[in-house]
């Protein structure tokens, strides 16, 4: 047996080594082999295989999802070409398919939903983070998060059976009587089911996202910034508006983007209240009181009766369209969120 010192020179074995029983002495040169033998004998192979299996199954499912949908939609894309993405005619009889109406509906409802949810959501987040007494902030936060826990079908049912009559008989007539907006945006007969109602329902559903993420962004602004502003003679509102909110801006942007992604993914509740008009009206009317359709609601209303072949392929093409948009928006939101986290840790380290 050889014993080596740190320089690699062989030295005489110290006396202590003689006390180690022969069967426990492992030659230095053989240690690596011993470990390898140990590993091979005990075989961690099954565990590794299992983990790879889990990962592979997941990746396989992902790939299968993409492949199935893309191949299912290929017939429609070949038939209509790129104009599918914006053409406004969806006619079964003439075999013309274009998702333009749905895109307009999606854009309008998402935009109006954000218009409603972002100010209210960020204002609530500011209250919870900066102004509410400590004991009140946490329970209120939990309550607002509760909205997110309600299944969308229940929200849809409430929207359909409670809000539609409410809007039809009270809200929309009132809106169409407004001096300027009444003619521009709230024109037309009040029917209840409309782009407006769909926007309101979407706004309710994305509020918890906006509030929770904005609150995190605002609370994450370091106390030092607030103290600095306070010590200069700023009032509490000035501290919030000039020192806290500008720092939290990137977090709030991430919150809004993720809320937009959430709105895009909401199909069933929207389908129940949007009115489902699958034809572009003659001349582009700009009223929110009109019934319409979004990408999600169109899928739900047309897939069931779609004949296999071109028609079904067209609906799957709408699915792919919606998928692409919501994945892009969600990915953007995640990137913004990660960038903000990196900014914050860089600032702490500085």
């Amino acid at each position, binding site marked *: 047996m050889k014993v080596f010192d740190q320089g690699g020179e062989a030295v005489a074995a110290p006396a202590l080594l003689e006390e180690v029983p022969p069967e426990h002495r492992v030659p230095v040169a053989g240690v690596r082999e011993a470990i390898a033998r140990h590993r091979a004998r005990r075989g961690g192979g099954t565990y590794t295989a299992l983990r790879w299996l*889990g990962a592979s199954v997941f*990746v396989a499912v992902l790939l*299968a999802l993409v492949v199935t949908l893309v191949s299912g939609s290929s017939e429609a894309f070949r038939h209509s070409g790129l104009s599918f993405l914006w053409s406004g005619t969806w006619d079964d009889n003439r075999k013309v398919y274009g998702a333009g109406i749905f895109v307009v509906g999606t854009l309008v409802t998402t935009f109006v939903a954000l218009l409603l949810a972002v100010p209210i959501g960020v204002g609530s987040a*500011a209250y919870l983070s900066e102004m509410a007494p400590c004991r009140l902030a946490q329970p209120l936060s939990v309550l607002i998060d509760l909205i997110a*826990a309600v299944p969308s079908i229940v929200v849809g049912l409430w929207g359909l059976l409670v809000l539609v009559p409410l809007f039809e008989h009270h809200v929309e007539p009132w809106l169409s009587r407004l001096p300027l907006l009444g003619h521009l945006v709230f024109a037309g007969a009040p029917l209840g089911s409309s782009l407006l109602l769909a926007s309101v329902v979407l706004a309710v559903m994305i*509020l918890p996202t906006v509030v929770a993420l904005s609150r995190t962004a605002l609370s994450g602004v370091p106390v030092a910034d607030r103290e600095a502003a306070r010590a200069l003679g700023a009032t509490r509102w000035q501290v919030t508006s000039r020192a806290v909110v500008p720092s939290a801006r990137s977090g709030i942007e991430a919150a809004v983007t993720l809320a937009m992604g959430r709105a895009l993914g909401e199909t069933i509740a929207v389908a129940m209240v949007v009115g489902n008009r699958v034809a572009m009206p003659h001349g582009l009317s700009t009223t929110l009181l009109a019934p319409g359709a979004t990408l999600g609601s169109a899928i739900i209303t047309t897939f069931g009766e779609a004949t296999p072949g071109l028609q079904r392929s067209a609906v799957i093409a709408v699915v792919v369209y919606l998928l692409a948009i919501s994945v892009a928006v969600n990915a953007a939101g995640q990137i913004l969120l990660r960038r903000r986290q990196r900014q914050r840790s860089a600032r702490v380290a500085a």
Partner: protein
Amino acid sequence: MTTLRTTDTGDVVVEELLPAEVLPEHLASGAAARRAAIRQAAGRTLGRRRTATRASHVLCALSVGICLVPLVALLAYTTARGIHAINLGFFVHDPTPPGIPGGGIRNAIAGSVLIVGLGALMAIPIGIVAALFLLERRGRVATIVRFGADVLTGVPSIAMGIFAYALLVEPLGHFSALAGCFALAVLMLPIVIRASESAMASVPVDLREAALALGARRSRVARSVVLRGAMAGLVTGSLLAIARAVGETAPLLFTTSSDLFNLSPLQPTGSLPLTIYANGTQAFPEAQQIAWGTAFTLLVLVLLLSIAARIVAGRLARGSRWDNSRSKR
């Protein structure tokens, strides 16, 4: 205070640490006037600034109120109208043809249990194993898995329903509970993966490394250290995934739907969300009544699952032994 500095020419120069900044004349002479102007502005604007504070408090508190109104309205309406529909018969009878009273949702409850249960059975083990994979590996596949999980959580659930349709309904020729399970499993998978991964990551690296150093196999380490330590987080994540799946309608629309009581995976079954959708969209008051009752049942179910998840998460926080969790990722 002074320092010594060596210039290019090799001389040593004694320098002030701080440059002597001489205040220009016009600034020095205007100082008193400036001070007075600042004091005056401060005093004059204070009233306005404080009003702005009060106004913003009121507006933001109002925002919170506006947030809570839909929640309260939703819960109130669902409870009020749902409770009317509920009696014992509601839970033990199957649906009756439209217009005929006495129907119940027995098939829907059984169907939901079957679909969500089987779906969970598919998704949770695979999700946990995939999370274990993410824990130990760092390469390109791991990035794909992590990125895929993030992306999949943002995918509209209707896409999963259509996917299941293409995969399992078209070939079989008819709806089946299996197709529904599959769609829900695909929905739950990313949720389970992300929740499990974060639960496992909170088990300190030091414990795992200590176990490895003692000679334990990786599988043993996973079993005894990681899974045991992350158990509460895994349970919470699974409960939340189940709570989410129970309420999803879109994946089931084109995969499974039935009014019959059925427990066989190869046949279509009813489900709570679809019962709500089918009944709620009808014009018959009795159907709408059933829809409210089912909605109330679903709400209670989801609430119980969420509360259970919170309790388990609370026990995780309270009984946590990882006081100085310094897990590095």
